[in-house]
């Protein structure tokens, strides 16, 4: 065992650091998917496309800012601005024009409608940004690297992935928990999640809450994409990967669980990056293996509450 550690310790350290950064990103996307499901009762297959479009928009905006000679920190403003814009521009029309027509329909039908949205958004993304890789690593370069002490060695790691990604994910988690439990709007959202009819009977405007939640969820997906954009070159197909991964996170946690999503994002993020370093063939499989293993034992997910079947 100790022998294994002296040989592979550094790799393990890298895997943990990578896993944390990755878990942060996955959490942001998954929590948006979860929030939207809670209120709309729809698993939005197009959520991954919003992630991808957020990433592309952030890269373009960042490059545009840099070209206009704005200071380097403006790159960070570009990330947040792109996420907000994507949420505000795409969220409301999707909810009002399409999803609103299918509330309360069969789940299979709802999945299909969002699949159709996914197909449309994928091509929108290709039409705007083409199929050539797009990349803007300005924000990541700005912060440079940090030497992380690890036993006798040090691991040089980008400060962006070490602090910004996990930090922002944690911040989002805390802010979201506070928002949902301590503010009026948040509690209204929770009320609709728990029991829509009762909430409406109390005079809550469910239509407005749905619109708000979907827009917010879309912005969270776009934020995940925007934050991921400096770390990688963007190519078509990111959206398709992201949605299955974030669904794995959500299903592992239990549908509708916010804090649970953070735990399972950590589990899946660390699991995946361990696979990247020690068994690269299985990198893509690991999240699903974790999910299937959890669902075999607890069909409602790690933190989910079993739902009684209606007679």
């Amino acid at each position: 065992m100790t022998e294994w550690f002296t040989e592979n310790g550094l790799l393990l350290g890298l895997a943990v650091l990578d896993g944390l950064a990755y878990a942060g990103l996955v959490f942001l996307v998954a929590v948006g998917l979860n929030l939207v499901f809670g209120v709309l009762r729809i698993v939005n297959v197009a959520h991954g496309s919003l992630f991808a479009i957020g990433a592309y928009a952030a890269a373009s905006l960042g490059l545009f800012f840099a070209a206009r000679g704005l200071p380097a920190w403006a790159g960070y403003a570009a990330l947040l601005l792109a996420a907000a814009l994507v949420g505000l521009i795409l969220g409301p029309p999707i909810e009002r024009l399409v999803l609103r027509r299918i509330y309360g329909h069969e789940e299979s039908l709802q999945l299909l409608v969002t699949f159709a949205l996914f197909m449309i958004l994928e091509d929108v993304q290709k039409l705007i940004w083409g199929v050539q890789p797009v990349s803007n690593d300005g924000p990541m370069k700005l912060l440079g690297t940090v030497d992380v002490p690890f036993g006798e060695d040090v691991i040089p790691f980008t400060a962006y992935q070490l602090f910004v990604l996990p930090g922002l994910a944690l911040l989002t988690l805390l802010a979201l928990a506070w928002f949902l439990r301590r503010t009026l709007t948040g509690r209204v959202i929770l009320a609709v999640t728990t029991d829509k009819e009762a909430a409406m009977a109390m005079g809550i405007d469910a239509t407005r809450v749905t619109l708000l939640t979907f827009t917010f969820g879309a912005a969270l997906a776009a934020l995940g994409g925007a934050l991921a954009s400096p770390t990688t070159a963007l190519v078509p197909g990111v959206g398709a990967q992201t949605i299955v991964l974030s669904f794995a996170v959500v299903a592992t946690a239990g549908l509708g669980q916010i804090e649970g999503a953070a735990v399972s994002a950590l589990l899946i993020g660390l699991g995946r990056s361990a696979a990247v370093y020690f068994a690269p063939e299985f990198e893509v499989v690991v999240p699903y293996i974790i999910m299937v293993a959890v669902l075999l034992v607890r069909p409602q997910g790690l933190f989910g509450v079993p739902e009684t079947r209606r007679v």
Partner: protein
Amino acid sequence: MSGQASRTGAGRLAPPGSRHRLELALAIGGALALILVAWAVPWLRFILTIALAKGIAVLGILLLLRAGQVSFGHAMFLATGAYTVAFLAPSVPEVLILVPLGGAIALGLGLVVGLFVVRYRDIFFGMLNLALSMVLYSLLEKLYALTKGTDGIRVARLTFAGTEPPRETQEWLMFGLALGLALVFGLLVRAYLASPMGQALKGIKTRETRLEFMGVPARHVLLFAYGFSALMGGVGGTLVAMTSRHVTPLLAYWTSSGELVFIAILGGAGSALGPFLGATAFELVRVYAAAAVADAWQMILGAVLLAVILFAPGGVWGILSARLKGRAA
């Protein structure tokens, strides 16, 4: 308003006699029309064979739709059939052996996967299928030594009942085989859906608990349908591989599963003819849309899917049968 909950659902009540006669007449007419088109426009023969093969796989989706379940992972069975052909063609080039073999292996996989997924419903059913198909996809992509990764495998030369006919004849043979199997599976599915076992599928959709009260084990009903659908997915996959002569992991990607479900909805879940109507329409739209607007064909398909779900929930079959019935009355 775009309607109530039971939209994809089939089985509006109609006098069984007239309905069956109509279906049969349309099936024979459709088959003749396909043969005519394949003869008149040779380059469409390839597309129509693929459409028929996919139609067979979509029949499986239709069975699950009857139970109100949508699988976003059925491409895994299509890929299983296709890779069976690609792996075995060098040693067993016989088409008449490979087709049933691919179906049998897919059936085996389907029963194993089915034991797990039939415990779940709705979103979880759909997404677990998706997850498992992605596992297969990444294995096909990553085990390079076996599968040649994303490059895929070229299918070796095939023999038909021991002979190796020239190319043109081979294309006709594949087309004929696909058409014949489509008719056989179409009839089988119709008989199955009319049987008590098939009727119980509808019970899973409306109220599963009532089914259990009647002493019908819902999981068994669904498992049987799942196995059957996996078998048809596998057979469809072997035909796709034999026609296109090239298999890639993309066959198992979740978006190709989505495509199968799309075809089922496009054609209409009301009849065993639906999948073939849908598959033909889908492949033709894809060919022409891809030629006209190469970058936006997926967007067009997505818009069509939305329009069908929101405005024509019976699919092509629904529109057709309503028309024909209107004329008869």
